[in-house]
């Protein structure tokens, strides 16, 4: 199952909450949806979950419009909102059973599905507990279990890791990887970029409702390789090395970090090799020349300006 978003726009009066966003997520892929607060992530996700309609553009599930066929889409996708609604006086089991009924699951099959989902999301031990007494992490699990109850092909998760402790985050990450292996297309928004870059196949970066970058993680990092940050250490006087480095073509900046330098090189790996050759030729005894592994976080910081709308 493939989710394709085409030139999606959503305005509230004069405010453009989402402005021409396009990307696609294929079956078995996890895509990160990142951006500062007010970037339009939740609005986009609500449109994809059929809870809102775009001003223009469309979102397609295997070629079928979510906007025109919302009833069909609801059977095909699972949505986990950023917070679980307050359900007083309701146990985990009753809550999941209710949604299983709401999706039209029948008697014996419904009971089996609820039990399986509770096992999968590690809720079996607390199935009789009332939801409003659960911790934030457990509530997030219940919310994920609800989104999975009808075995959707596409999962849309809005800030699933918000407020979770480190252990719960690791467990959530593992669950998502299993879901992707099962062939589900997963779109996940999160502020925790280091975690996203570990599990995501691709990412969509939004700011002020506009899409700044979208694509596979390796493609996004490819951009980064044109602008390398390298850790440099050599035997001898570091101040002299600092002066020397700044004279080499391709080196943009250099700053002292500990007993070495951090230099920015324009031109990618070719340019970095030239810089290293230049240093050795100049007689510097280089003992460390290591490009920094920045990942998604660095890409995000480079392309966004940090302002909120």
């Amino acid at each position, binding site marked *: 199952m493939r989710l394709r978003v085409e030139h999606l726009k959503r305005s509230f009066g004069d405010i453009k909450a989402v402005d021409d966003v396009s990307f696609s997520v294929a079956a078995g892929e996890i895509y990160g949806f990142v951006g500062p607060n007010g970037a339009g992530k939740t609005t986009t996700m609500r449109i994809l979950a059929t809870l809102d309609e775009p001003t223009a553009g469309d979102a397609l599930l295997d070629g079928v419009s979510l*906007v025109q066929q*919302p009833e069909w889409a609801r059977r095909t996708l699972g949505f986990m909102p950023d917070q679980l*609604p307050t*359900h007083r006086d*309701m146990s985990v089991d*009753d809550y999941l059973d209710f949604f299983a*009924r709401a999706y039209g699951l029948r008697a*014996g099959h419904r009971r089996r599905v609820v039990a399986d989902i509770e096992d999968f999301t590690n809720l079996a031990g607390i199935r009789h507990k009332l939801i409003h007494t659960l911790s934030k992490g457990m509530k997030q699990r219940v919310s994920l279990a609800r989104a999975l109850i009808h075995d959707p092909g596409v999962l849309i998760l809005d800030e699933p890791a918000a407020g979770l402790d480190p252990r719960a985050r690791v467990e959530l990450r593992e669950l998502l990887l299993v879901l992707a292996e099962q062939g589900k297309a997963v779109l996940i928004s999160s502020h925790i970029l280091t975690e996203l870059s570990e599990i995501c196949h691709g990412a969509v970066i939004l700011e002020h409702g506009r899409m700044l970058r979208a694509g596979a993680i390796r493609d996004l990092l490819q951009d980064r390789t044109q602008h390398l940050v390298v850790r440099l250490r050599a035997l001898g006087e570091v101040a002299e090395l600092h002066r020397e480095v700044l004279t080499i073509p391709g080196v943009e900046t250099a700053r002292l970090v500990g007993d070495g330098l951090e230099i920015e090189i324009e031109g990618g790996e070719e340019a970095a090799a030239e810089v290293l050759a230049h240093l050795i030729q100049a007689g510097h005894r280089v003992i460390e020349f290591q490009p920094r592994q920045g990942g998604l976080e660095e890409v995000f910081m480079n392309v966004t300006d940090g302002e909120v709308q």
Partner: protein
Amino acid sequence: MSGRRWMEWLDDAVNPIVVKEVRQAVHGRFLPSILLAFLCFQLGTLGIYLMSKGTSDINLLEGASYGEEVFGILISLLFFAAVFCIPIYAAVRMQAERSGHGLALFYISTLSPSRVITGKLGSNLIVTLLLFSACLPYLSFTYFLRGIDLPTVFAALAVGFVASAAGILSAVFLASLQVSKLLKLLISLAGLGWLITLLSVSLGLAFALRQLGVASYFTRSNIWGPTLFSVVICSVLFGLVFVLTVALVTPATANRALPVRRFVTVAWLVLTAGAAVDCFVDGRQDLVTVWGLVIYWFFAVVMLSAICARDQMTQRVASEVPRSQLFRGPAFLWFSGSANGLVWAVVMVALTAAIHLLFNHRLNVEFEELAGPQLGFCAYILSYALLALLLQRGWLSPWVRRSQTWVLALILITLFSALLPMIGFLLSPESVAGSMTFGLWLILSPFSVYSDAFDTFAMRFALGWAVVMLVLARSWFLAQFRQFVPMPSDG
């Protein structure tokens, strides 16, 4: 089918919202505590009453009416809980879900809005039934204390149940409205007033039944006509509030107008058929008069609400527009949108007026006498609605939101109705109400059609004004017709 499979089928057939809400009610504190309080109160009331009378005073053989007195106390408490407390409980829960993500989450399942509302209604009626079942043994016991018969007890309970259903539906409807805090407060107060009225009327009926006995009703001659009339009117009102509630919780991007207009059209047909029977078969005018008044006023309200609807179709609505040009014209009446709503209301008023002409012919009554004022009133409201619409869409949109156009129309009606007579009074203080001189100053008031001295002139003026307004709004209407086209196909 085996017993187990039959039970499973039944379990699947129950509305999921009913299952959820009843489970919540049972797990919560409200229902168990109210049931316990009820049982304690009933036991206490019966015990105290019997003890206060003393065994020597309770002579069950000599025309005693102790049962009647105890029944009065118990039924008052039961009705208070069923007609007042349970609807408030339903409204509070609905409001909480409307303001959070709860109801939105229902929409990402396959539950339709009508199932959501049916479920809300059903679950609260089950709570009412639980309450009734807790009271039934004690109410039945009053039969043994004399002064009341069992059919009357059950008839009173039926009255209470219907009143409770009406209260719950009204409460869910009001809680579904998404309005500002101030309006919410006003609506809550109006809702409380309505529940108090409903409680008073249902208790009044129950006490009248206690007084006269249910058998007295059936000994009257010709009970079926008024009974059928009451049932039809109550069903239409109940159905109307139900479809309106469903429309309120349906996503704004959908064609919310369709179920409401479908229901209203069917109700219009039923009521018109009833009035026709009364007119052509029985040769009476009573039902025709009520029918006309209700229908014209209803469509006047429709016109005021239609101008608040959107002008642009959503993608989802556009995808449902028929591709065939032949069907697209009639379909225009059944889609959400301000022009669609106005045209539908005008068509329905025109149909009503045409049928009214037939009724008048049969009854040998002048059109101006029976239908004229109502038609004139509708024409006035249409004119004001179009004036407000043109002002809002043309110049006032930065200050008046589209959803507030009805308020603008009401302000215009009040302003023109009150301002001109005030000027007239200042210029010609000797004028008296009802005379033609003063009447002319009232020409912009929709209610001038009801003035005896002035009705025909006012009606003609109103119809003329409506035509002028329609001509002024023609470019807006044409734009709306032109954009009523289906989505381009993918191919």
